């Protein structure tokens, strides 16, 4: 199992101090996530789901426990090494998009390439391809304030995926969008997941959470339930029509993507509950 896991958290604890009070944001969290999984993390405010996401995204460090990303223990890395891993392996999508307001859509998408020091020619190629893939070609030279919410989030997704990360972390990706554009964005994320990208969505939205194959419910800093849905199969089947081979460098074993929905009761942590959320 550890070899197959993309993300492996064991006995993670994270405590914050707010003034005099001690907040146990994460308590003894054990979690294994395989490549290509589609996970929704749900739970009330303060349940630790954002902390979990930040931790997986290497923005935060656990006080205790080990975190292995692609088999590598990342809890011991220093800040610059973490930044490098973050740049290459992790894509972030935020509720408020976090586009740089003075940069055009194209420049926003280019940002990770600039930060990683890609040569200009390669950057132009990749950005124009990404603009095409996300239907933003005619909005390339517009600034974020000239884009609609959906377009903004598409720019943010294009930016998050331009370096082909192993895992895409989305924090309330539809929180600032209306239902229709939210739906579009979710479909886009699911398409990426279908192409093999591991997708972890943190959300309050039950409907959005229900679409995920695996649902993790957090309460009080711990994982209250961890369910892998079977009814998503239908969704999954509908997605079979999508061109899964657009990104050729999909390095997930194909059987992995299949086994999860077909065999819902797979080797999951014991904390999961039989009730489908």
């Amino acid at each position, binding site marked *: 199992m550890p070899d197959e896991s993309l993300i492996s958290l064991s006995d993670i604890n994270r405590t914050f101090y707010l003034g005099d009070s001690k907040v146990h944001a994460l308590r003894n969290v054990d979690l294994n996530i395989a490549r290509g999984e589609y996970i929704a993390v749900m739970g009330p405010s303060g349940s630790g789901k954002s902390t979990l996401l930040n931790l997986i995204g290497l923005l935060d460090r656990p006080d205790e426990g080990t975190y292995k990303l692609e088999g590598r223990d990342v809890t011991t890395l220093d800040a610059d090494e973490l930044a490098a891993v973050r740049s290459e392996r992790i894509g972030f999508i935020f509720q408020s998009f976090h586009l740089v307001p003075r940069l055009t859509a194209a420049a926003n998408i280019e940002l990770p390439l600039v930060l*990683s020091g890609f040569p200009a020619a390669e950057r132009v190629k990749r950005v124009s391809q990404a603009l095409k893939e996300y239907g933003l070609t005619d909005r390339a030279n517009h600034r974020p304030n000239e884009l609609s919410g959906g377009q903004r989030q598409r720019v943010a997704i294009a930016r998050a995926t331009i370096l082909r990360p192993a895992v895409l972390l989305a924090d309330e990706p539809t929180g600032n969008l209306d239902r229709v554009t939210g739906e579009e964005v979710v479909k886009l994320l699911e398409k990426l997941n279908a192409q093999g990208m591991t997708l972890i969505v943190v959300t309050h939205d039950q409907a959005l959470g229900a679409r995920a194959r695996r649902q993790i419910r957090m309460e009080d800093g711990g994982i209250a339930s961890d369910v892998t849905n079977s009814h998503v199969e239908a969704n999954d089947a509908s997605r079979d029509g999508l061109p899964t081979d657009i990104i050729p460098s999909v390095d997930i074993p194909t059987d992995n993507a299949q086994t999860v929905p077909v065999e819902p009761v797979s080797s999951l942590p014991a904390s999961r509950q039989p009730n489908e959320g």
Partner: protein
Amino acid sequence: MKITDTFRFATNAATAAPLRAGLLVLAMSIGVAAVVMLTALGDGARRYVVEQFSAIGTNLVIVLPGRSETRGFNPANLVTSTPRDLTIEDANALLRLPEVKRVAPILVATTEINAAGKLREAMLLGTNDDYINVRQMKVGLGRFLSKDEVGHGSAEVVLGAVIRREIFGTENPLGKTVRVGDRRLRVVGVLSEGGQGMGMTTDELLIVPVATAQAMLNSNTLFRILVEARSREQIAEVKAHVLKTITQRHDGEEDVTVITQDAILETFDKILNVLTLGVAGIAAISLAVAGILVMNVMLVSVTQRTGEIGLLKALGATSSAVRQLFMVEAILLSLSGAVVGVGLGYVGAAVLRHLYPSFPAYPPLWAVLAGLATALISGLVFGVMPARRAARLDPIQALSKR
């Protein structure tokens, strides 16, 4: 992150807030312009004084009666301790030295000129025909003093331009007789206007042959002897020989002081350089103020762009990359302010020169470079704190803020 990208990103960030960038550039440019203009002023003053001193002639060695140095015991002091006067004979002896080109004895006194029913106080200068060449002055009308081979002194006078105008108006003064002191002298020439030197204008002089002046004043001493060396290299030699010759003529007693024009120039040069530096130092205070403003503006910028910094970190920017971005932005802003300031300073100096044409207010190169360097350094120094603050931001908190 590539350095070119860092610069592009920082430039973009700086120009995205035009008012902020503009005000900062303005503050920095005022500081640099102040340095450039005030040093131009100081350096202009130095040049002005040096030019004034150069105007008394070139390659000059000046002989003054009396010793200004403290010396040890000299047997000659036993015989007499009264300094001997400088005489015309001393001046003539100096002319015989091989390195000496010209010699002009000088005798100065105040006197009255009385002509055409007008009376005026004037400075009387007794000298010889070479004086005009030694001092590099020009005759506007008529001629200068004639050569006095015999040494008796002829009854002729050369007027300063102002004296001529006040006494004779537009009338031709040549050949007219004027009464100077108790003598009647014939006007042979008029100096051209605007002669300067040692802060004394030549426009109000009456120049007469030295022998005539001595006779008028009933004295045989000289005020100064101006000696012109044949070349600049021979000045030191001339100085030594002049001293030796006079000492010999004065019974072995060294009772004159010989100074060179260069030595005087150097002294003034030094004094006024220090003045320029002092002025530049005062101007540099405004640069420091501008630097603090850079820091303030950058700190505000870091606060405003907290979300962006968090994002950059989430996208995998290292702390040093973030720090670099903000440092480069601070430096770019300071430097562009400095460049604008140098431009402003040059314009200001040009305006000064336009208003006071005789005042050579050119900004010295060192001051321009120092101004630029100070701006750059203040950008660096005052950019460090905001950049470090940006680099140290916790990405989670930075992202949640907006």
